[in-house]
């Protein structure tokens, strides 16, 4: 039996209460140098939490089986924004359609893995750890950070933005992560005395959490200093609409992506940024809920890409979306869909080679009684981004090799 809790406590030794191993042992390890880390190639990960319905995101409008399976929440062919003769985007996504037409969006169809799981938490674990067998204990981005992008443990190379806790993808023994909800609150409040006292409380904390606590504070201390004048070096060039009231979403994606832009533009060592939008678990009223969420994703991602381009950094940034699973082909009785399997993902940015890749899974030849059969292993996407975009070695992160996709421009 593997539970969420098992995953979360896996950093503790098996015999009794051991030391909680912190991401980086020594507090001064990153102090020296960031010379070998540059934000020349940045990967932004956008997590769509809850299991986004792929079939109502990239719609197989030419397949009659689609509307048969979706009599009330299906989107008719006349409304979709066509990408080719058979599939098109949900009509609430004109921004991504525009980027697609400009050749800056790769739509990878049918992404999944063998023997799909239908639990949120197993699905999350598999994607976060790049491991359908759920044996790995370190997140794939954490491993990538620690092993290749930043062996120095620089605190701002890996960032979780617009959130308060560290995403499991970024957790690895030797990875340091800055978790920044917003820059104005990422401060030691209360005046100069507190700014001295706060880090002084966490220099050599005893106990099993000691090094973990101390690293949190040293990471914060470093980040605060680095971000001190960032508002003088970054002004958003576009309007990010902060629709924080979108139903069921627990994060403001537009605000998170604006913060991401600020980090990329002002911090030369940023390589990996993680943002999240929740609310995609649309067991009911999917027509209104998913549309609102996708519209929000569309406007926030479009604004972010434009802002990055306006700052002359379009060549440096690639964004990838993912979700723990797609949803059942047939709608349920509540204008919603239950947990499913394979789904499309988006890879967005000027360095991307645009187009529709992979094959739309059959809506009728399904697996596990009504779920989509995957065509592209999600680790193929990871491998492509690691090697072709970040110029790093995927084998040490993924433990095996997967066919790559031609979705990154070769210069």
């Amino acid at each position, binding site marked *: 039996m593997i*539970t969420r809790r098992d995953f979360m406590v896996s950093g503790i030794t098996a015999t009794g209460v051991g030391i909680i*191993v912190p991401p980086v042992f020594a507090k001064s390890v990153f102090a020296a140098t960031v010379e070998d880390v540059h934000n020349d190639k940045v990967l932004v990960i956008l997590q769509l939490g809850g299991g986004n319905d792929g079939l109502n995101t990239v719609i197989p409008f030419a397949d009659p089986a689609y509307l048969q399976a979706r009599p009330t929440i299906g989107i008719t062919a006349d409304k979709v924004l066509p990408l080719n003769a058979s599939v098109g985007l949900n009509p609430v996504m004109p921004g991504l359609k525009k980027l697609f037409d400009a050749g800056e969006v790769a739509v990878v169809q049918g992404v999944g893995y063998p023997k799909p799981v239908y639990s949120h938490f197993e699905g999350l674990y598999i994607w976060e750890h790049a491991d359908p067998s759920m044996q790995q204990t370190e997140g794939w981005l954490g491993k990538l950070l620690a092993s290749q992008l930043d062996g120095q443990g620089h605190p701002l190379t890996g960032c979780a933005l617009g959130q308060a806790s560290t995403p499991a993808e970024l957790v690895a023994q030797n990875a340091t992560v800055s978790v920044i909800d917003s820059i104005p609150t990422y401060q030691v409040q209360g005046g100069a005395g507190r700014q001295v006292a706060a880090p002084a409380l966490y220099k050599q904390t*005893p106990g099993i959490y000691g090094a973990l606590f101390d690293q949190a504070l040293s990471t914060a201390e470093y980040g605060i200093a680095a971000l001190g004048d960032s508002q003088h070096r970054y002004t958003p060039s576009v309007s990010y609409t902060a629709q924080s009231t979108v139903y069921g979403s627990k994060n403001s994606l537009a605000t998170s992506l604006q913060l991401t832009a600020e980090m990329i533009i002002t911090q030369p060592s940023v390589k990996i940024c993680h943002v999240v939008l929740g609310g995609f678990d649309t067991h009911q009223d999917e027509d209104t809920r998913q549309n609102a969420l996708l519209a929000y994703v569309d406007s926030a991602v479009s604004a972010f890409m434009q802002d990055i381009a306006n700052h002359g950094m379009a060549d440096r940034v690639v964004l990838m979306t993912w979700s723990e699973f797609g949803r059942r082909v047939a709608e349920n009785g509540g204008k919603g869909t239950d947990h499913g399997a394979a789904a499309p993902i988006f890879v967005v940015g000027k360095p991307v080679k645009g187009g529709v890749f992979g094959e739309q899974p059959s809506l009728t030849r399904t697996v596990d009684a009504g779920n989509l059969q995957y065509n592209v292993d999600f680790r193929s996407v990871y491998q492509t981004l690691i090697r072709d975009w970040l110029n790093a070695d995927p084998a040490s992160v993924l433990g095996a090799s997967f066919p790559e996709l031609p979705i990154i421009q070769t210069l």
Partner: protein
Amino acid sequence: MGSAHIKLSRRQVLGIAAGGVVGAVGFRYLTLQLPGVSQKVASAGGAAGAWASPLTTSAGRAAHLLRRATFGYTAAEWDSAASMSYPDLVDMIVNQAAQPLPTVADPTSYQAVVRAWYEHMATTPAQFPERMTLFWHGLLTSDYRKAARLPFVLQQNVLYRSIGRTDFRSLINAVTFDPLMIRYLDLEESTAAAPNENYSRELMELFTLGVGNYSESDVREGARALSGIRTILVDANGQRMQVPKLKGSTPAAYAQAVGQLLAQGASFKGVLAPQQHDAGVKTFLGRTGNIDPAQALDIILAQPACAPHIARNALVQFCTPDPPASLVTSVATAFRSSNYDIKTLMRTIFTSEAFSAPDAYRSLVRGPAEYMVATMRALNRPNLAARCVQAGAAMDQILYDMPTVAGWPANQGWVSSGAWLARLNFAANVVASAHTFPDPVAAVHAQLDGVVGTDTAAVFNASQSDGDRWYALLGSPEFQLK
């Protein structure tokens, strides 16, 4: 009190140890030495890189239990607890009767409910019932989002308090018919023709059994068994009433109408609507029959995985961050053989050897709500409740708005650079808004057992005011732990 009297003494330096993860420096343990107050800290037993455990003393053990079974304590409560035998203290705590949540001005506002709950957590002498209410809220999760402007959050909060210490069979039956849960996990949408799987899956995966102890077919068949549960409004005599409509009303008028109904004894409740329920034959977890919701829950509770799942979750929250299988099994066995008696579950945990072992000392991380309520209790300032409602988000805990149906992280999952800044900033803001403070030295003794590391001692000793001293205490690593 002048500053000369409130230095932490460096005369008591205990347990210098080299090695461990931090290298050759080791830690020194500074303890308070106050005139007329006996040393409460064990002078031996601290492993390399650990605090010296005071759990061999009755005072130390009482404080340890109070930090875990309650939201914190005053010096007087600690004294009283330390004067009891440990088994008597455990019995007294698990048998506490809950005090009802005071009337909430706007029962349709989840924030008003959460604020009232924070205040209640800070003030009620019946601490354990509140701690259990929070425990069940974190395990049997629901968020407010689908029930905006309905008093469902309040009703669930009241429910978990009233039966959260009875037996798990009663609890999980009530939860399955709880209006907020019905809304949150889409039971309301589930019909015989199209059963919605959301509750069926999370009931087994998260609430009772854990992944691996049911099949996808059980999820679908369970959804059939659970189909047809609906929420109705009944008056004080149990007669069905019409639910007031928000449409065409103003939020204020609507809130007033709902509040008036509740004041007259009306309540929302879940019922099985036969015409929406799939009465056909199902095969669920190996049993075949015309299974209805109550029978489905009985079948789940008969599974061997159920008691260990609850026991493990309780152990991670109350005992040890990584409970060994033998401990889970022994607690689960006691729980199961008591017919899922929740007091037995908790008494077994609190009296286990693991609970008071030296390595149990400060082995759990206070969650944000626990941290904030402990702060209010240490300072005797329940008027910080509104601040707690606002401050939770940056520490990653908003009550009735968890990140996912799996609830919140535990222990090291709470730790991040941003979340730790948020805790320190909460302490700073709390201190800045205070005019007077309880004696900070006595508080180091009472709240932190007088056992602090070199960093906390140094910051405390360098402090210029009681506000600075309280900042050091509330922001210290020691105060984040239990």
